[in-house]
């Protein structure tokens, strides 16, 4: 289903997965953490040489307990809301130093990792700025649907109805009252060359998208669904199962936006959303009405996505930062 691939892009197959790890064992993530797995697979697909910028969050904390680091690649963490701004500086610095001959010219992937908090909420401004300026980097949002690192508080990425500590299932208000913010759509609206959603259960798809994102010239955005057994209250062995169901129910459809063109992975016989919701205790308080609301909205959003695919069929490939940047070289 991946079309419009960069010229020398070779898709990963089960037997050609790279062995290299950018993050090593010994990190302090929870048992069964879906986010560190997602990070690992994205990093593995992009490969070295790479420089990583992390926002404050689970991944930063579990990977860098001084004096130990689980990062096998150069890594910089500054603050919570500025991964994209720091990555902008890294990218511009590398570019200038190479242009001036102070460091050898080579392709170094600049990859920013942030959670849904550091992306959709406190980090949205710096992300928007970096995308608009067209820096050549990959921004990866590892979405575990709440501010997990600080103890499971809601974010704008928390799905409707989900229980978090700041959107608890109470007697008067039952969980998150707003619908999950659509970050991929916001990124697509920035007209960047590449936007994609991915789930670790579809690991080949995820890795291919990560690789493409890194190969494309200009900004690329990956939204990676990242289960959190601790915050979502499901079994530690269920991260992949949950990542599969979220796609099978169309709650998290897999798609790409390539130069404005939507390419959607079709799922014409989706499972009912209830199958996904019932295995996570963060949804255990949902009423049948709420489940119906969710089902209806999920179906609508999926239909909308298909319509966007049809509507953007005819786009030939616009002049974007990718083309401008290519011209400059």
């Amino acid at each position, binding site marked *: 289903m991946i079309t419009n691939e960069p010229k020398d892009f070779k898709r990963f197959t089960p037997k050609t997965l790279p062995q290299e790890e950018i993050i090593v064992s010994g990190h302090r993530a929870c048992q069964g953490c879906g986010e560190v797995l997602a990070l690992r697979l994205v990093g593995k697909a992009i490969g070295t040489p790479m420089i990583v910028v992390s926002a404050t969050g689970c991944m930063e904390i579990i990977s860098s307990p001084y004096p130990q680091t689980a*990062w096998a690649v*150069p890594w*910089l963490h500054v603050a919570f809301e*500025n991964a994209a701004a720091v990555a902008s*500086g890294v990218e*511009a*610095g590398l570019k200038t130093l190479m242009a001036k001959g*102070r460091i050898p010219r080579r392709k170094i992937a600049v990859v920013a990792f942030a959670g849904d908090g550091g992306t959709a909420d406190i980090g949205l401004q*710096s992300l928007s*700025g970096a995308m608009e300026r067209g820096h050549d980097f990959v921004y990866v949002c590892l979405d575990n649907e709440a501010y997990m690192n600080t103890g499971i508080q809601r974010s704008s990425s928390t799905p409707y109805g989900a229980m978090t500590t700041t959107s608890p299932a109470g007697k008067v208000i039952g969980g998150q009252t707003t619908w999950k913010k659509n970050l991929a759509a916001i990124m697509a609206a920035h007209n960047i060359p590449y936007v994609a959603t991915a789930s670790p259960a579809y690991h080949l798809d995820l890795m291919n998208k990560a690789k493409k994102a890194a190969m494309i010239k200009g900004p690329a955005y990956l939204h990676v669904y990242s289960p959190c057994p601790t915050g979502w209250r499901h079994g530690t062995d269920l991260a992949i199962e949950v990542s599969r169901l979220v796609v099978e129910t169309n709650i998290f459809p897999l798609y790409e936006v390539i130069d404005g063109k939507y390419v959607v992975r079709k799922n014409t016989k989706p499972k009912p959303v209830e199958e996904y919701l019932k295995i996570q205790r963060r949804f255990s308080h949902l009423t049948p009405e709420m489940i119906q609301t969710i089902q209806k909205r999920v179906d609508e959003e999926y239909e909308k996505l298909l319509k966007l695919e049809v509507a953007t069929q005819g786009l030939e490939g616009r002049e974007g930062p990718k083309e401008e940047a290519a011209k400059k070289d």
Partner: protein
Amino acid sequence: MSVRKGMEVSIAVAEAVKLAKVDVIAAYPITPQTHIVEHLSELVADGELEAAFIPVESEHSALSAVVGAAAVGARSYTATASQGLALMHEIMFIASSLRLPMVMTVVNRALSAPINIWNDLSDIMAERDTGWIQLFAVNGQEAVDLTLQAFKIAEDPRVLLPVVVNLDGFILSHVIESVELPDQEAVDRFLPVFQPTLRLDPDRPVSMGAFGSPDVFMEVKKQVEEALIGSQEVVAEVWRDFEKAFGRSYQAVERYKTQGAETLLVTMGSISETAMTAVDGMREKGQKVGLIHIRLWRPFPFREFFQAIEGAKVLAVVDRALSPGGPGGPMGLEIKSALFDRRERPYVADFVTGLGGRDLTEEIFEEIATKAEQYARSGEAMRYEMIGVREE
């Protein structure tokens, strides 16, 4: 060939940044810094300065981008004022504790509210504890010279700390002065290419910005503190090198007609020159008044300060910021604290004035010096006095 030209001081600062051959500039416009960044982006657009100019979307992102660029070994610069500096506050501490060299020009402007675009020192005073080396320029030439020196100080392997060069908004940034721009080759000799001690390099991966538990936090902070204190020697060294190369000398604490002075005005920034004119007037009338102005604010130059005030009986400190509800203005606070343990110390009279761009004239400096002497004669302690507020 060095060139002497009349130019707006903001433009001169931008020209100094160009002479320093910066690699990355990330800046967000805010009055009264705008002319600096506008001129820099013109220089880049015209190909006169080979640097990446990142037009960031906020000051917080400006400093964040500069940190990122410095981490990969690029010579990096930004400029801001007032609200912009306040917005950078979080990152200020991080920049120094990560031991990354960078230079920032702060064009001093009052902090809101009320929103006010004119000059006082409240913006930089709120950043005292951030671990940055802090310098104050008094005129256009100093603004140029301190900028060039700042890069050399910051990048010294014994320092590796960010440096801020302060210049007063409008009253210095927007005036046209005759400034000597040194010759590029001479600058290249004084300020060679940046050789980072540590950088993000795929061939030698390191992790910067790890999370530090209570077991390790204090040791990192102690290291930064020792580097900041130790940087004073490097600053003095750089000033000696600068004098050899360009003929202009700089001190941590500068003196003006302090010989035989019983009362000293203590100032920072460009008001020092107005105060010097006031001192001339007072000397003509036979008053034994002199002036010292503090050029190096952080690390505080205790030794030079004590030397400069030797023999003085009264210090009239002219603060242009206030610590509300506290013992007075920041300069007054620090000076009293520095003098606390001394067996013999002058009377310190702290005056807070010129906030939000309220004009400071020679008459006001005369009033301050006179009042200071009156307070000293009364023998009573004074916390501070605000000068110039309309009472009726």
